[in-house]
């Protein structure tokens, strides 16, 4: 199996190399035809389309942002080049750089304006922006050339004033390869993981300390920059900039390409555009049916090939990731330092004073004062609906407080969940919130978000700083997985492992954020005995290292063995607090539970 995987991989690598070589040699083939410049033009335009489709893939496929203004960004990049070179006689190279800047700045402006609407409306807003941008260009008078556009844009030259079409073709192809590499580096970096985490589940990503808005703005800026670049290159290739370039109908090719090739895959955009460009070439005689054919193809492709060509391959037996097996010696060799820094024994890490949360007339939490200390396993129990989870949501900033206050490390707690998380309070939800389409290892790496000390540029260009940080995080993530016995699953997607493994993985991911306080909401639910033992070992180890572990549990046996201190909550109030022994003898607790056979039995 492994050897066949390797063979297939080699075939793919060799095929790609041959394809790239053939593409570089294409101008020579074109020369043998009766109309070399025509064929060269067709392939060059397809190369520009591929760059734009990659840009679209970055924001839609990986960023989870539906953009309908990429044709508009392309148009603006084209106009930036045209206006600067024709009206202001700028150097072509500088104009190209400005096209990138224009694309990025415009994208940032649009997303800043619509941050509150990223989910449902963002696509619609971008569509409206696209229409307006086109209208503005058309009404731009002599500045933009109005309906006629600006004609006479030239490719930049190195020694001469202008590159030959052949040289420009080679330049385009090189840029496309560069853009592909940028996409790959971005996707595999910590930044890419975080963005995908946000796409999968904004709630969980926030719990890990990832700021949703910062990531969305950044990824859209990168995407806009690449779209501006594609537009600048296209206008140089075509020799003009026109408002029609911004038309959504002419942008259909990008969507078809993306969905046909496979959205959220690296090679999908390029393969998809290659197929669509070939189809468009074959039906070139009947241009009025172009939109009809492409639109129909898009719908058909969504029905028949929902993951696209590359996506289908990835999900097939051949394309699924190869699982690396670790032997016991390797697993044992991982050294890990998970001790909590900057805290002393029994330090108060988090405390609440008379915390209350009312939903209308329901007092879900009604004056709770609670203290979490370092090195302590703090159990919270209470009947269903007693307000345990609400209490946690209040402590971690997911609900605004009705009354009372929360202090973290002696300071008032910030309002936003991701800011609280950054102070070292990490929460694991009651139902598994994994990034199911990401690998197990990537899930843990996402938790290491706050350790990454490199910028998005470091990631794109893989600077030494990025490489060092990435190697270190990967090593640490593996060590954490080894601790939970999940090392052999590291390359599987998180959606494909068992329920118990998922729960353990979630705890591991939370530990990866280097929390001072780890809040686990019913982690033992549905775990097998051996998995319970691993979890128990993990929790004791964390507490020994100085972490404050908060455990909300229904499994009383599990809790009583593990907890140093137990708080019992009923109807939003604390009715008892103390060591497990004290609590079990407490009159009030027995009173509260005696009527409930399920609990009195478990307590007995």
């Amino acid at each position, binding site marked *: 199996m492994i050897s066949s995987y390797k063979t297939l991989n080699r075939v793919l690598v060799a095929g790609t190399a041959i394809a790239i070589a053939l593409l570089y040699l294409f101008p020579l083939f074109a020369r043998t035809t009766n109309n070399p410049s025509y064929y060269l033009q067709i392939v060059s335009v397809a190369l520009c389309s591929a760059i734009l489709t990659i840009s679209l893939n970055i924001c839609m496929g990986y960023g989870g942002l539906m953009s309908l203004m990429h044709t508009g960004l392309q148009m603006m990049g084209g106009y930036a080049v045209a206006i600067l070179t024709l009206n202001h006689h700028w150097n072509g190279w500088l104009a190209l750089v400005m096209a990138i800047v224009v694309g990025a700045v415009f994208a940032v402006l649009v997303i800043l304006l619509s941050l509150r609407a990223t989910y449902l409306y963002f696509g619609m807003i971008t569509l409206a922006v696209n229409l307006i941008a086109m209208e503005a260009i058309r009404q731009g008078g002599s500045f933009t050339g109005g309906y006629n556009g600006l004609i006479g844009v030239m490719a930049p030259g190195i020694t001469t004033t202008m590159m030959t079409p052949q040289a420009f073709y080679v330049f385009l192809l090189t840029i496309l390869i560069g853009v592909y590499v940028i996409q790959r580096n971005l996707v595999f970096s910590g930044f890419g993981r975080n963005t995908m985490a946000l796409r999968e589940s904004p709630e969980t990503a926030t719990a890990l300390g990832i700021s949703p808005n910062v990531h969305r703005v950044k990824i859209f800026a990168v995407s806009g920059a690449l779209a501006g670049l594609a537009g600048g290159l296209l206008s140089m290739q075509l020799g003009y900039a026109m408002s029609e370039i911004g038309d959504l*109908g002419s942008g259909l090719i990008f969507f078809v390409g993306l969905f046909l090739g496979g959205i959220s895959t690296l090679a999908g955009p390029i393969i998809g555009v290659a197929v669509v460009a070939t189809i468009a070439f074959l039906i070139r005689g009947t241009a009025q049916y172009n939109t009809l054919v492409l639109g129909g193809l898009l719908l058909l492709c*969504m029905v028949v090939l929902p993951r696209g060509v590359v996506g289908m391959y990835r999900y097939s037996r051949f394309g699924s990731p190869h699982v690396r097996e670790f032997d016991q010696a390797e697993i044992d060799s991982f050294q890990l330092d998970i001790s909590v820094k900057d805290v002393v024994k029994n330090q108060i890490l988090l405390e609440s004073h008379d915390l209350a949360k009312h939903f209308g007339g329901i007092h879900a939490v009604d004056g709770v004062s609670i203290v979490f200390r370092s090195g302590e396993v703090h159990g919270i129990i209470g009947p269903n609906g007693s307000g345990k989870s609400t209490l946690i949501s209040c402590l971690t900033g997911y609900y605004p407080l009705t009354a009372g206050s929360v202090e973290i490390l002696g300071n008032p707690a910030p309002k936003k969940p991701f800011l609280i998380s950054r102070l070292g309070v990490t929460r694991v939800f009651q139902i598994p919130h994994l990034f199911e389409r990401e690998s197990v290892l990537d899930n843990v790496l996402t938790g290491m978000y706050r350790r990454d000390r490199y910028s998005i540029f470091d990631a794109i260009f893989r600077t030494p700083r990025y490489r060092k940080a990435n190697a270190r995080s990967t090593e640490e993530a593996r060590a954490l997985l080894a601790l939970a016995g999940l090392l052999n699953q590291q390359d599987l997607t998180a959606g494909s492992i068992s329920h118990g493994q998922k729960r353990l993985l979630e705890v591991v991911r939370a530990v990866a954020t280097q929390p001072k306080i780890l809040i686990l909401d019913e982690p033992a639910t549905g775990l097998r005995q051996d998995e319970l033992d691993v979890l128990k070992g993990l929790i004791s180890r964390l507490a020994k290292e100085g972490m404050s572990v908060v455990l909300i549990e229904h499994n009383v046996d599990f809790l009583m063995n593990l907890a140093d201190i137990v708080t019992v909550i009923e109807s939003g109030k604390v009715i008892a607090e103390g060591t497990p022994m004290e609590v079990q003898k407490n009159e009030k607790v027995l009173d509260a539970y005696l009527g409930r056979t399920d609990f009195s039995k478990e307590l007995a």
Partner: protein
Amino acid sequence: MDLQIWVEGLYIGSVYALIALSMTVVYQPTRIMNFAQGEGFVLGAAIGYQTIGVWHWPVWQAGAALILLAMAMGYVMERMVMLPVQLSGNRFAWIIATLAAALIFQSLFNLPYANVTFGYFEFFKTRANIFGAHIAMQKILVFTFMVFAAVFYDQLLKRTLWGRSIRAVAHNNDTSIILGIPTKLVIKVAFISGTVLIACAGFLAAPVIIVAPASGLFFTIQGFTAAIIGGVGSPKGAVAGGLMIGILDSVVRSSLGGTWGVFSTVMALALILVVRPNGFFGKRVVGR
């Protein structure tokens, strides 16, 4: 400010309100904002142009053709949108599918009518005089139709079993199936009735508004803006939002020029999304 401009704004607003209303009809059970909805408007205008303008059919005959073709379009649209949405599993499926449907219909309209504007003669050539503002009876007809359609749909949602089914499908498709609600039928009927509604609007309004084969997306955007400002999913919101941007558009257009009219509606949209993301009458939106 000239009264004529305000009356004009009310009329344009009622067109936008009708589009927003038909988008609401589709949105209610499916939670899909249909990009192809504006194509129904173009269909209505095209049928009016062809049957009454070119073939000189009597109005009732044209109306019958209109309703039949609009039903057919609604059915086709439902298949074009719902199949990809159900089968692709991509979270953007609805937006891509409705957009593709819109572009397909647009290119179909472009085949026979490439350079045509669908104006045909008015049903009523008379003009009413309201406080000194002259207004074509045709425009009053559009406004009246809008009010009736909105009230009818609002009451349907609130008072009938069918209306409750629509809301149930919107909230939870699986539960609705368990409760015996024919969810697929509810969705089909929503697409068909939404398309008939908007096609009637196009048919009635074509003589007094500029409709070209490619203007479907423009009307979709206006209707969408109206729906957001009013609050997505609410018939009242559709009417209020439509009238608001109609008046805004008309006032700005007359004082600053045509391009600014479009700008002003988008600015209003941006403003409302920042200040009050759920619109004036909307509940919290749970999207697909």
